[in-house]
């Protein structure tokens, strides 16, 4: 009986103290969700470790679930128990999470840091704020790498080499989804860059893209994980293949593989943070405090020391320095570097939000034929 009373009293106290400190107080533990691998360690080095050091008593736990973040967040939300505080997702997923009401809307100017020269956050991020809930971190690109020793004396310089099996015989690896592949196919089938999405919105345009892909169907190995293409290139299984530019950088510069970069028609995409809805006020305050720090100008520039993805802020670009271990200049390896960005393509979020299901069904049916 006495024990029960003591227990109740302490519970009541804890509850009372919990509510009493809700205002302005921040939770001391946060769960960050990211992709694992080199990308996650770049985040750990560039801003999580400094943040934890600055804020005594705060601990950060990683969960490598970004690939299934949307589905898991929806399930957590339905169960009424969201265990994640800050989640790293690609922009398309951020848009969907925002649509589903699973991500918190952010007022960039109010809740994110301004640039050192006073430029407001919304101007500094500019067009990269593709959703009300999305806090951009990096610009990455999906582009092609090729085996320098297998392409002969004329290494490919443009993306249509992928479709040219006469000049470059051998297998190619492409991602097992329509996004990017359909665009490249149309580009190489003579559609002008600005018309690609208009054409792709029509049934004939989709057939045209699939027909172009059909010409190399037997030569394609389809990948579903970002690590596949670097591995296939390293093993000599494919002569060229698409993947994220950071993966190719790691294979070329860190692992010294005979691989070259083909920046032509690289497709820009964004990756950033969202904060789930349904957090307690303390946890939400902590998450907001963290992302404000983690996406300021210096922190985003620091991240580029560890991985070759471009910082999402304009003001970070001049601060990009050298690789932390290799000591090479990182700027020429950024997808946004002028030399690399001569011909680029911007992933059209609105288009794919609408057409993803439709085109994916056609694409999968075509694959199965």
């Amino acid at each position, binding site marked *: 009986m006495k024990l029960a009373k003591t227990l109740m009293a302490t519970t009541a106290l804890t509850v009372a103290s919990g509510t009493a400190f809700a205002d302005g107080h921040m939770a001391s533990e946060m769960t960050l969700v990211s992709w694992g691998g080199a990308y996650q360690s770049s985040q750990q080095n560039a801003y999580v470790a400094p943040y934890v050091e600055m804020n005594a008593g705060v601990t950060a736990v990683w969960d490598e679930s970004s*690939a*299934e973040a*949307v*589905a898991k967040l*929806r399930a957590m939300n339905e169960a009424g128990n969201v265990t994640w505080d800050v989640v790293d997702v690609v922009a398309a997923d951020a848009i*969907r999470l*925002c*649509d*589903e*009401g699973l991500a918190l809307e952010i007022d960039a100017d109010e809740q994110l840091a301004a640039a050192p020269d006073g430029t407001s956050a919304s101007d500094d991020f500019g067009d990269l704020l593709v959703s009300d809930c999305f806090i951009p971190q990096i610009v990455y690109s999906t582009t092609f790498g090729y085996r320098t020793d297998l392409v002969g004396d004329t290494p490919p310089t443009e993306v249509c080499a992928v479709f040219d099996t006469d000049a470059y015989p051998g*297998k190619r690896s492409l991602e*097992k989804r329509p996004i990017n592949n359909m665009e490249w196919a149309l580009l190489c089938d003579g559609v002008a860059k600005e018309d690609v999405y208009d054409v792709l919105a029509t049934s004939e345009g989709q*057939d045209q893209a699939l027909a172009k892909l059909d010409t190399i169907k037997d030569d394609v*190995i*389809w990948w*579903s994980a970002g690590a596949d293409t670097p591995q296939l290139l390293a*093993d*000599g*299984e494919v002569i060229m293949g698409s993947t994220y530019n950071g993966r190719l950088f790691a294979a070329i510069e860190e692992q010294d593989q005979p691989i070259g970069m083909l920046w032509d028609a690289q497709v820009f995409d964004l990756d950033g943070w969202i904060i789930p809805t349904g957090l307690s006020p303390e946890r939400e305050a902590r998450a907001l405090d963290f992302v404000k720090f983690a996406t300021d100008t210096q922190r985003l520039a620091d991240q580029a020391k560890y991985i070759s993805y471009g910082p999402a802020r304009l003001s970070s670009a001049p601060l990009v320095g050298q690789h932390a271990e290799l000591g090479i200049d990182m700027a020429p390896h950024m997808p946004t570097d002028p030399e690399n960005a001569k011909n680029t393509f911007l992933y059209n979020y*609105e288009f794919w*939000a*609408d*057409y*993803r*299901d*439709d085109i*994916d*069904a*056609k694409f*999968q*049916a*075509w*694959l*199965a034929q």
Partner: protein
Amino acid sequence: MAEVMLAADGTPLKRSLARALRRQKIRALGLIAPLLLFVLITFIIPIGSMLFRSVENEIVSNTLPYTVQALSSWDAEQDALPSEDTFQAMFFDMFIAAEAKRHTRLGTRLNYETTGLSSLFRQSGRKLDDIADVSYEPLEDLDKAWDDGETWYALMNARDGTDESLLAEQRGRVARLTDSETLGDINFAPDAEVAALLPLAAREYTAWAIYVATQDGRDPAARDPWEAIAPALALDLQTADLSGYDGPAADMLRAAQDANLPAPDFTAAFAEIDEDWGKRVPWETIKTHSGKFTSGYFLNAVDAQKTADGMAWQPENKQILITLFGRTIWMSMLIMCSCILLGYPIAWLLANLPMRQANLLLILVLLPFWTSLLVRTSAWKVMLQQQGVINDVLVWIGLVADDNRLIIINNQFGTIVSMTHILLPFMILPMYSVMQTIQPTYLRAAKSLGATNWTAFWRVYFPQSIPGIGAGSILVFILAIGYYITPEIVGGTKGVFISNRIAYHISSSLNWGLAAALGTILLVAVLILYWAYDKIVGIDNVKLG
């Protein structure tokens, strides 16, 4: 006639026995109750609720209740757009849905049926204020007091009589829309007189008040209502007879009526937001999928779709799921058969070797079992790829030309080989434990009666080992039918299973309804096969040891 037999305590023996048995049964049930509850709570209820999503479709009528109601009288056969009333209902439904961030969720849902609705809903949600401003700005110009939440609260809040039915109805509307509780004190009740005079405005104000009080936790008396209240008022004033009204804001209402407060032309306004609203397609989609329950997901799961005229097949270039179902079952059978062929001799060996060697062999069977599934699958990748171990060896011994290496991965062959390897222990173990119980004396007896080795095996040994084959086959087949990691990694395009599509719809497209329908079909297929097995072989014939 015999006397009733009595137990020692004098009660009839029959009853006493029954009581003892019942007590025993209850005790037994009590013993398994924790397990039963555990299975019920952690397995049956979650799976049931997941599978229920395959028919559940409340989101449409919960998000757009008045639109769905108005659309029910629209004859989709005729070539005209829905009536102005429907557009008007859509405006009020969408307005509150956009405030609750539910319109985008509905857009995602309807986009599974008609491409383009996702962005149509997302973008329209942002522009509803433009429609509301058609009435809101003139109202504000007429009298600044309309801009003040207190004016509205004084007008709408109950004085003499409360319109309880309106309040209850709107509580239900907001509860269904936000999927949350809306009971409790909200410091507001709609006035009966005003509700009769200005039905639309009272309806929208009440919904707003409930929303602010229950979702935002604010006091409606101190807040300004959403702009959607102005068009509602404008519509009411077109017909309202204000002559007998002398409550709050009576003069302001008369002034607004005299000034002919403009109401938006909703049909034109929606077409201006997005030209697609001026087409029949989005309306047909909403109407077709407005039921609380739908067969649409199941139709989608078999390459068909629900249309305004009933069922129709998907265009041929989108048909894939039936092919995948067929392939999944066919390849699982192949994998099961190759497991039987490879596993039988090993199980026989295990059962007939001396204990020491048998144990060593058993460890070899189990060893891969203890290795991570991903590691085993990736190992097969290294073995089978064109520059892999098998091809290298074949080239080295000259069986295969270097420029013509075998393609044995990223196709059905790759899936079958690696899944056979992964599932082999599930076949060997039940076979082994059944074979262990077969007396070697039977074989000896058969031979001593003149049977050849083959006859002795086929007529005496094999029939006794069938229960093991049955158990192993069921295990392997059911496991194979649900596999998706291995096919994803080594299956390429022709070696993937239906589970890969289920995984895609769970984690990528978020079309959980379709995923649930696919899962249900898979479950039913397994149950049918199990039933067929029971009819043909007999489930009593299955033994795990």
